């Protein structure tokens, strides 16, 4: 069979789709469970509420090696309204832990930016723990393009 260029491009693309489909079959729920367990550890068993915390991440990451993420929590950062820490977890990585930020009143704001590795398309979870013990969380899906070309 002689393939012309377009067919080759298509075939390679087809293989990529299959690869993604293959990954989807794997038990995502186990990883999500592990992440949920980590969240509970972090919050001391308290179920986080929605709101207050924002997670910024690309909808589609061009490369899973370096995905920029920013997290910020609404807070006066003084008195009782202080964010103590924020944990970032990735459901689909070999280990869910990514980073834990620790803030103080001297932080001024509860916001931080870093760059993370994502093994595949998955949910990224951020949980904030306030000084008064309340906890908030947010989840965002980041699609990771597998392989691509590019040597």
């Amino acid at each position, binding site marked *: 069979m002689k393939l012309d260029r377009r067919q080759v491009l298509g075939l390679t693309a087809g293989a990529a789709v299959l690869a993604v489909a293959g990954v989807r079959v794997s038990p995502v729920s186990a990883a999500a469970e592990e992440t949920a367990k980590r969240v509970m550890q972090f919050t001391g068993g308290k179920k986080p509420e929605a709101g207050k915390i924002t997670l910024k991440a*690309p909808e589609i990451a*061009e490369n899973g090696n*370096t995905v920029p993420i920013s997290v910020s929590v609404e807070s006066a950062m003084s008195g009782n309204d202080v964010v103590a820490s924020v944990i970032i977890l990735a459901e689909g990585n070999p280990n869910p832990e990514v980073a834990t930020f620790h803030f103080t009143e001297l932080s001024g704001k509860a916001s931080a930016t870093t760059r993370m590795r994502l093994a595949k398309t998955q949910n990224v979870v951020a949980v904030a723990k306030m000084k008064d013990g309340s906890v908030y969380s947010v989840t965002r899906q980041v699609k990771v393009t597998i392989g691509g*070309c590019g040597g």
Partner: protein
Amino acid sequence: MNSTTLKWAGLFATATVFAAGAAVAEPDNNTLVIDGNQLVTDVEAPKGSPLSRIYSGWRFRSPETQTFEMDDFENPAFPAVEQGEALWSTVDGEAGKSCATCHNDASETMKGVRASMPKWNEKLGKPHTLETQVNACRTENMKAEAWKWEAPNMLAMTAYIGLQSRGMPVKVQTDGPMQKWNDNGKELYYTRVGQLDMSCANCHEDNYGKMIRADHLSQGQINGFPTYRLKWGGLGSIHRRFSGCMKNIRATPYKRGSDEFIALELYLASRGAGLSVETPSVRN
């Protein structure tokens, strides 16, 4: 692979050929400004080019990847650039010299160097790339050991030297003794090789702007090298990228520093004439 999977593969392949044809995502319209200086990321193609307009690879990247290059602090290549700056004035070799001994302040003496490489060298009887020029200085003038093509020190030094030309238009000599090299590079560019039987042109001339699998194909311009690739998690040379492309099409890559890769580098530089040097760029 069983027959069901094969059928699926076929279906997917057909669907995606369609998508590749339909999903034409041209380069974006973003503007690259670094430190208040605007760089040229698209320009009318040089005379004799099969393209009408040429675009820096930056224009094909996602906004997040683009942002990494727009601030020298956020650009992950800069620790290496600083390493290059330190090496510039570090004495090495039996002659007791550093780069700075002869070339003083790189920000003046190295201005424009990256933009004009590869450059003909009479003594050598062939073009110097930035890497071979650095090593010629090291072995002949400094009496120091040559660095390997992809050694961290070499990448740091070529990134530091390249940065001094950032914003200057790429302009290489292609006539006189360089013509033969440029012609050889052109021939390599259009020759189909490897098990996939593809040439550089098949992707980077005929299909740039389209998606190949999940990747947005660029014109394969080399104005930002050495480049920090997110995939590599570090800097890499032009020849490393060539090598990666050749592996992708299941061909046996030429060696880094081979006459073939030097010729191809020259030809690609000439195809990118007029684009700003972006060293050290950031790509996916």
